[in-house]
């Protein structure tokens, strides 16, 4: 048998190291050289999204403008519920103004206080969406100051920051009055990665709101060059109006008065320069023909035909207007109807409520909401979205007036009365009554005037998300007693079970799952 041998390598083993070394050394040298060759500069790995801007990367004036537009757009976008409808659930359905209606057990829970679960849908939406709105403003406050684009003038930059601060404070003012202590998130999570914050005390939250609003007041113009913007964008007057409302909610009526006067024109004893005035016709506020009027301090813009806008209002409109055959939501209460009738307030009654029979044999039969019989003619909310474009998925172009002069006039009256200047309060109350053809109030004593103002606000601002907070300012126990005393059209108790702890909403459990440092309100 022959022996096979391979002779590739004649080198003796002893020579191995010196002979391999040059090769290995060259490998290393070239590897290093290659590092600079096919490996490229640091920017090679820094690929940023091309379809979107990114947080922390604002460069131009346009970036800043687009971001602030987004803050307003989020509020009007009916993908989100808060500023389309939920603010009305919180302010009116929860109060004695509206029933829940519809077919949503979670809204029923808010209405009748019987069982408010910690996963209640609208309460969870409020929390999530207001913080999302706040997140959009935090982005501006973090990123806009660093923009060096000369196209962004110092004035405009300050205005944008003012708009963001106004909006942030406005959102927090809604949060704090519904949830009590809340998390103060003042930066994007890119800037402040601590996501597991505890709730801050109510005082701290209000201090932050007031600070933001005062900054906004300093940064914002009285009016914009395009006057229409002066009602749709945050202005100095809007910041001052919210300051007045926030001070009132904290019980600081002296500061409330100061800020009411900054908003009000001289005829109401103020020094406001924005030229706000009451519209001569109350219905013009809601007829969509007088958008961004002189009475409007801050108004959410809706555009007809934009599917994202005004969807939620369709859930409350009568079937003849919005033809979806389900039980409509948030019908006005018999108690509110009585209030209008008792006051003889036909002007505001007709602007606020429309009646329609949808029982058997009607053109648009739908099941009747709770507390109404199928044979009843049903009252429907008529203040918002009434110019429905047709179909059921469209979206009304009617704007939502979030802040208006009448609110501040009545707030000043409230402040004066609380501060003992009852006689100064009465003319303001009467100014509001005069517009809707009502005689001057007969109330004289401080207590009676207080009740008269509370009722005036109820009729003036029904379905504008204010009633519940008006009641709370009037007194917690008053609110509890009033709500537990509610009766239906036949005088039968509605069986509400309001307790002190139910004056605040629960913190949504799913967010407590996300953040173990989030405490729950008592009673939940």
């Amino acid at each position: 048998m022959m022996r096979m041998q391979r002779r590739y390598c004649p080198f003796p083993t002893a020579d191995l190291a010196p002979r391999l070394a040059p090769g290995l050394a060259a490998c290393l040298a070239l590897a290093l050289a290659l590092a600079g060759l096919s490996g490229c500069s640091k920017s090679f790995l820094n690929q940023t999204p091309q379809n979107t801007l990114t947080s922390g990367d604002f460069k131009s004036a346009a970036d800043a403008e687009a971001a602030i537009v987004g803050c307003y757009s989020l509020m009007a976008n009916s993908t989100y519920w808060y500023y389309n409808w939920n603010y009305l659930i919180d302010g009116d359905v929860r109060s004695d103004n509206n029933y829940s209606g519809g077919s949503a057990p979670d809204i029923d829970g808010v209405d009748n206080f019987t069982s408010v679960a910690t996963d209640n849908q609208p309460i969870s939406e409020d929390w999530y969406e207001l913080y999302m709105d706040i997140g959009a403003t935090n982005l501006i406050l973090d990123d806009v100051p660093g923009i060096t684009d000369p196209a962004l003038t110092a004035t405009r930059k300050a205005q944008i920051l003012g708009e963001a601060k106004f909006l942030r404070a406005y959102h927090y003012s809604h949060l704090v009055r519904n949830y009590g202590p809340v998390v103060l998130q003042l930066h994007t999570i890119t800037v402040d990665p601590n996501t597991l914050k505890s709730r801050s005390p109510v005082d701290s939250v209000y201090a932050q709101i007031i600070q933001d609003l005062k900054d906004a007041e300093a940064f914002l113009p009285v009016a914009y060059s395009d006057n229409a913007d002066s009602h749709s964008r945050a202005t100095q007057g809007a910041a001052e109006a919210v300051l007045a409302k926030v001070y009132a909610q904290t019980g600081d009526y002296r500061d409330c008065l100061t800020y009411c006067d900054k908003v009000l024109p001289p005829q109401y004893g103020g020094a406001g320069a924005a030229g706000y005035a009451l519209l001569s016709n109350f219905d013009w506020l809601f007829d969509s023909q007088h958008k961004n009027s002189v009475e409007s301090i801050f108004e959410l813009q809706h555009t007809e035909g934009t599917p994202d806008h005004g969807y939620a209002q369709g859930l409350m409109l009568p079937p003849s207007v919005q033809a979806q055959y389900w039980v409509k939501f948030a019908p006005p209460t018999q108690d509110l109807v009585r209030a209008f009738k008792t006051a003889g307030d036909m002007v505001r009654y007709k602007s606020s409520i429309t009646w329609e029979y949808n029982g058997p044999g009607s053109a648009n039969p739908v099941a009747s909401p709770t507390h109404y019989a199928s044979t009843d003619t049903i009252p429907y909310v008529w203040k918002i979205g009434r110019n429905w474009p047709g179909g059921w998925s469209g979206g009304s172009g009617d704007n939502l007036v979030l802040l208006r002069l009448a609110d501040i006039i009545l707030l000043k009256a409230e402040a004066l009365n609380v501060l003992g200047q009852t006689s100064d309060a009465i003319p303001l109350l009467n100014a509001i009554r005069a517009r809707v053809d009502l005689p001057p109030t007969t109330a004289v004593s401080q207590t009676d005037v207080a009740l008269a103002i509370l009722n005036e606000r109820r009729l003036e601002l029904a379905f504008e998300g204010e009633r519940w907070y008006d009641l709370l300012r009037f007194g917690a126990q008053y609110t509890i007693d009033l709500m537990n005393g509610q009766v239906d059209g036949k005088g039968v108790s509605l069986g509400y079970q309001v307790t002190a702890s139910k004056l605040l909403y629960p913190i949504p459990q799913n967010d407590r799952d996300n953040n173990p440092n989030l405490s729950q309100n008592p009673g939940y």
Partner: protein
Amino acid sequence: MKLTAILVLTTCLQVSAKVYSQKVTLSLRNASLGKVFGEITKQTGYSFLYTDEVLEGAQKVDIKITNASIESVLDRCFRDQPLTYSIVEHTVVVQRKQENNAPPGTEVHGQVTDTAGRPMAGVTVTIAGTRKGVATDADGRFTISVPEKAVLHFSSVGYEGVDVAVADRAKVNVILRPIAVSLNDMVFIGYGAQRRRDITSAISTISVTDVSERPVVSAAEILAGKSPGTQILLPSGKPGSDFTVFVRGIASLTGNTQPLYVIDGVVSYDTHSLDPNTIQSISILKDASAAGIYGAAGSTNGVVLITTKKGVKGRAKVEVNAYTGSQQITKKIKLLNSRQLATLLTEEQVNSGNTGFSIPDSLVTANNNNWQDLVYRKAPMTGINAGFSGGGDKGTYYFGVGYVDQDGIAETSNYKRYSVILNLEQQMNDWLGVGTHISYNRTGYNDVYDNNRAQYNGFVLSALNTPPFSAIYNTNGDGTYGFSAFSQAVPNPMGDIYGTNNYTIGNNLLGDGHLVIKLPFALSFRSQLGVTLENTYQSIFQDPRLTERAKQLAGIGNYNTAEGFRYIWDNTLTFDKQAGKHAIDVIVGSSASKQHDQSSNQAGYGFPSPDVQVLSAASTYTLNQSFADAWTLESYFGRANYAYDGKYLASASIRWDGSSRLGIRNQWANFPAFSAGWRVSDEDFFKSVHFVSDLKLRAGWGATGNLPADLYPSFTQLIAGNNYAFNDSTMVSGTVPSSQAGNPDLLWEETKQFNTGLDISVLNNRLNLSADFYVKRTHDLILSVPQPQSTGVSTKEVNMPGYVQNKGFEFILSADIFRGHGLSWTSALNMSFNKNIVELPAGTSPILTGYIQDIGGNAGIVKSGLPLGSFWGYIDDGVNVQTGNITFRDLNHDGKIDPDNDRAFIGSALPKFTYGFTNQLSYKRFDLNILIDGVYGNKIFDATRMETEDMTDMVNQTTAVLHRWKKPGDATDMPKAYYGSAAPAGTVPNYSISTRWVESGSFLRFRQITLDYNLDRKWIGIAGISGLRLFITLQNMFIITKYKGYSPELNVTSGANLATQEGFDHGTYPEAKSFTFGLNVSL
């Protein structure tokens, strides 16, 4: 080039894989021939074959020569020597001058061919017992003088040796058969090749010699049933659809689960650009020590290395393959006829309290359509491809063209592909070689819509659900198709299929240009620039003449375009040296790649004429958008392989990867890997164990990575399109933060894998076993996790603590079972056992997956302690004899059935094991190949059956409902018919997600049976034809399964979400079986 040469007898010819160069520069004084040969080997890669005796008496040489051809150098060296040489392939055979020729005898000639009848060049033909021999020429022919009673021995690398007694014959023709596993085969290992005997990691190689023997449309199909540890699934029976490939289980929850493909060195994430007929070889790198060199680009899921055909020096060669065949649905589901359905529907209504319901007899007798018969067809498929290859001393070429035209078994569906490939290699001079590989194809694809409910136009479910008494055409006579049972807006399956023309054109290009520079010190530098380009243009038109909905809108059109372009630039430096018993090869390199994607979508309606289908004709536009993305990957890597005496083997690699797709603070990561092997059979103490011809033990550990699914997880994006009109007139554009927060700290998903295995060959290599055990754990799983809402965002991609583990055992056993009397039988069995488990930290909420449209619930779950692909639902304890309702198991014994407490793990979509069994039988000119594959132990959630057996809607059902519960006392497993969704208090409806819909997915399938006939050359010797083979292939002809649907392999999901959506059947395009006839011609 004449290749005939006299050889020394060899039993084992070992060829080292090198880059072969033709130029030699030598400057030696007084050097032994051995030393000269060593130097030439170093420079050219040519090896020398000789014995010590031959060199005895040879003179030392002085030589100084620059850039000379190897022949001229050898001529100089051999000038005054008593020796001659010849070159066979890349081996220089040295022998003594013929001073002692064998006594003259008979001259014998003949030809050596392979099993396919192709001539084999360079086969060694020796006279047994002597040192005399010749090699065959390019036509496989040889001539040799033999003494009386001589026995000729034929041998060639990679083929079984054959001894043939000459007897009195003047002509001896021999067929050589390939050896199933040859230890000396070169195996591609990523940025290089290694002899199989030296491999220390888990690598499977696929013999692709049979690719041309059957109609293969997609590259991944070649892998099916052939490789242990690799599960190949065809998730849809649509023509031209992509395969799903899992290497060693599923290792990521949200990231990629598919292997990385590397085609001729170019990293690719699919094989769209490749005509499988041009594939030469495939290696699958399974463990971390093999795949680690590809680092984080997705090598966690294994790496599939594909090498395409190259030209070979020598004679020009032409190969043509053509086939044609017919496909049809593997089975049809038995459905109720009109009368049976009418009875059922009435019963549904009566049971739910609507006693006044009935279906008029006139309707029942009007039609009895079996929609499956109308929708499915016998579909032809045809393919042809031709390859032209060859080469000279300095260069090789391969040029191929191909064409496939495959009709789908559903009407109108069709796939066409035109492909071309060009591979060139050229040696420019001694030190510079250049080459290119360009593969292009254009595809055309007519799609039909599946994987959806009938009312959402899914034709498969529509064909099952549409009542047989429904009419094909609308009764108003306008020519539009009639309706499905659900709505006047949804057409019947005929309308689904014919009413929409959904055509996609694809252009796929994969190519590279490379250069190789030989450097001093055994170094070689290679630079390769590869590109992939994929374009698609999809045009969808709903014809107003054919469906009611399209008629209302006067035609609906969509147009979608997408382009993906990627370049990848690799630079590598290799060092390859053998010194005595030491062999070392080292590679270092860098790689940079960037991908650009862009896409656009347009839609409109209102066409003046249905014959003008371009969107510019539409009157109203509803969609107009475009997008662009880009991402990058930058890498540095190195690997060293070391062997001592062929016995002690070690390999180490490291890769350092950075990508734009990670958190910007954590873009870089290291992926090291090590492995070692011990060839026990080469130890002296083992030499006495004769029946074991080879035994190697291997072990390795390493880390690999996986990219996140998201391209920009680092950033909080600001979504455009949130516009607003401040003064109630002019819209201005706005942006809002997306609900997903950026995570600049996001890390790669990292998989650490331990692998150990052994390779053993016994009984003179007739039985080979390769087995591996592995534990593969993926950490830093990327999940989208809810964020505290006070942050203003909802989710963030984070690296979860915990892991997904795949633990498994796999083996392939190949056997040379029988040979002799013209018959041979070889067989290989591979099996893969894999156990998957998800371990997440306590308190992690389960992730519900597998959304079931039918009832709006989830049937899948990702939960700690369970495997991926788990199903979650109630347990069906049978039908109550009295009520006809299903008794679901009350797991917490609280007297009611509720989703929070009574749902449980009800099966896993992942098989306990998968297997493949190949058999190759040859008898004379016939070859028979049988491929059997299967899976065992997996479950399928049959959401299709939920729609065809739940008896809750006004739709057709299968004949299984005929034995439904009808009256108290009926004992059956089929509950009562009930229209709607009501359930008795404290329980849930009969159709709820439960074990009722979970079925065994085990199957054994005769995937492919091919019979070949190789024509005798004497019949075809005209016109220069050197080989002609005819074949018949049957695919998917038999399957053994209990599964009730069309096919146990179909799956509603492919591509994304594979990890969490496995094993759902919901109206997927059925699988086909096929019969194909074809021929291969070689010139």
